[in-house]
């Protein structure tokens, strides 16, 4: 075989490029990294999830602790310059006390005295369990009584909003993941089965998904959320809400998976595998799943923000997460009454977290979508 030898001599010329030795996953990662917004989104989300993971450490107070002397306190940022204009480190706060205006019944907070209470970093305070396991009492920062540090103010019961937001992240950021996981399992399973089997099963599934996809999310979520028995405790409710979120969104995933399965089923490499006597299981696990996964990942990433929004909406209406558990939606629930909100606008701060999380997920989803098909360009 003469020319094969010369071919080999020529082959290295084109095989030297860096791109040629990378796997599809590595190529995707390379392209993803180039998308600045996607990287920003990934960094923000990583920080959010770290915040949820280390909630007990970051939060200066237990989210359920009521500071009876400080109801509806506005946010109070630690200062580095005192009233005389002198610079201090570490940052400090003044102790405050509330005063109720006798005419308007509005409550306002004033510093008492000019004693500075510096922030103590890595200080021992209320005990908690890190990751829900390790008992400890070290917090990132704390101040000595009687001063308080309420970065985002308090609610009308005097609970620290910042601590509640940090703990709320645990629920709000996982409910979407849990919901998407359930969606993924239902969607991938049904998508592969109906794409692979075809026939009547596929037909009926598709008609059902047709309705499910076009049906507006919120009314359906509401209808499903009302079916959760009120007697369930907050943990059961958490899982029930995840299930509700996923029951409404698996359709789009199943449709996507089915679409790619139908397309892949006709590809020459699946045909070749079949002609090599490969069984259904082999074809699904070696050919269909790996090649649908990037599309599924895109859909899943883009479904999470919708779910976070769903949880927020349901909890906001009182149909979602129940106390003593807390979530961003539930925190916003207190801001629902306009009159309350007008007097305590800082109750809307959890919304900032919701919005940032949603945008971050959208950034990432967009980045993965652009990177998903490394051979498109």
């Amino acid at each position, binding site marked *: 075989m003469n020319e*094969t*030898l010369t071919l080999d001599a020529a082959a290295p010329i084109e095989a030297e490029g860096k791109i040629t030795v990378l796997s599809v996953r590595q190529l995707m990662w390379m392209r993803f990294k180039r998308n600045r917004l996607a990287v920003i989104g990934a960094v923000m989300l990583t920080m959010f999830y770290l915040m949820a993971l280390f909630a007990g450490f970051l939060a200066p107070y237990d989210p359920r602790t009521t500071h009876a002397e400080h109801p509806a306190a506005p946010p109070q940022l630690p200062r580095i310059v005192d009233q005389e204009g002198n610079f201090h480190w570490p940052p400090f706060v003044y102790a405050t006390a509330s005063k109720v205006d006798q005419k308007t019944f509005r409550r306002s907070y004033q510093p008492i005295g000019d004693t500075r209470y510096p922030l103590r970093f890595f200080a021992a305070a209320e005990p908690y369990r890190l990751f829900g396991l390790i008992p400890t009492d070290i917090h990132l920062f704390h101040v000595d009584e009687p001063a308080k540090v309420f970065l985002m103010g308090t609610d009308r019961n005097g609970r620290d909003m910042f601590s509640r937001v940090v703990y709320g992240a645990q629920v709000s950021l996982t409910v979407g993941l849990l919901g998407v996981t359930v969606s993924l399992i239902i969607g991938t399973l049904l998508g592969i089965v109906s794409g692979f089997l075809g026939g009547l099963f596929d037909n009926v599934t598709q008609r059902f998904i047709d309705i499910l996809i076009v049906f507006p999310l919120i009314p359906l979520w509401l209808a499903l959320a009302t079916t959760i028995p009120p007697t369930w405790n907050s943990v059961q409710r958490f899982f029930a809400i995840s299930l509700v979120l996923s029951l409404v969104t698996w359709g789009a995933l199943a449709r996507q998976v089915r679409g790619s399965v139908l397309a892949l089923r006709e590809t020459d490499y699946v045909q070749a595998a*079949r*002609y090599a006597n490969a069984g259904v299981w082999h074809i699904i696990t070696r050919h269909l799943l790996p090649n649908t996964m990037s599309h599924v990942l895109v859909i899943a990433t883009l479904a999470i923000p919708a779910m976070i929004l769903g949880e927020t909406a349901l909890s906001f209406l009182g149909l979602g997460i129940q106390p003593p558990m807390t979530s961003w939606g539930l925190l916003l629930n207190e801001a629902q009454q306009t009159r309350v909100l007008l007097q305590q606008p800082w109750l809307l701060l959890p919304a900032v977290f919701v919005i940032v999380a949603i945008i971050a997920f959208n950034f990432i989803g967009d980045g993965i979508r652009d990177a998903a098909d*490394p051979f498109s360009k």
Partner: protein
Amino acid sequence: MSMSPTPESILEIRNLKKHFPITRGLLRKQVGVVKAVDGVFLSVPAGKTVGLVGESGCGKTTTGHCIMGGTPVTSGEIIFHHPQLGAMDLAKANSAQMSKARCAMQMVFQDPNSSLNPRMTIFDIVAEPLVVNQVARGSALRQRVEELLGLVGLRPEFMQRFPHAFSGGQRQRIVVARALALNPRLIIADEPVSALDVSVQAQILNLLQDLQQTLGLAYLFISHDLSVVEHISDSVAVMYVGKLVEFAPTQTIFHFPKHPYTQALLMSVPRPSPTAQPRAVLGGEVPSSVTPPPGCYFHPRCPFAVQQCAEIEPELIEVAPGHFVRCHLAHELKLEGVGSLDLSVSK
């Protein structure tokens, strides 16, 4: 008609038909039928190459998939002479028999980009038939894959790379290596060089010929490129709208065609010679395989058509030993082959 069964033939196809129903609406009411393959006769001798030519949509690829058991056959016989198990009719084979048959015959696809899973390494791709059929594992598997890659002229160092790292020609070599993994006797090559660059096409054609010589392979070489088919085939079958219209040894069919369509095809081929006669132009369009014309499917475009052609469908007849034609006028017509053309190209 009867095609004399040659003892050394590895594949014989008799009156193969594959019809796809066209369904509409929710109730899947059948409103028509696509006669993708509608009467194909073929015989592939062991160790030889049979070319299958025709224009797009004529059913040549579907014929290939019928042989591989990729789609159930409507009627007809596909007799495969398995080296160990003897003759078996693949048109009626159950899945166990089909699995055994597939170990002795494999398919090579047209587009080397889509016939390799982008997420598998070359090793995984070539090893796949060996793994699923539990032929080899561990170091034996590795050795066999290295051997196969060497056979198609690829370096074993590339085994852990992914398909996108290779050029079109190299990918087609990988496809061939996978097809050879189970030691087949017959390869169905569906347009194996059509997607390749002109300068690479010859490499693959030579590779296929070398492999035929060293391994004694038989090829069913499906292509629309008549020059390539003439180069590689021992005999050629011509299809038109699902039907086999002519089947003969290569020299015969190219120099003494008996079917007007074969002649028209030969005359249409562009010749790399500026002094060649202008090519003859066949008028009209290929009819749809859902609503083919009555009688001989070719009669509306045929310059020799008579009344009979529009009414009666011609049968396949053997005009000379090994030369089959589906034409009413097969004995009367004097047709021209490629030899009649001025080909004053200096080599």
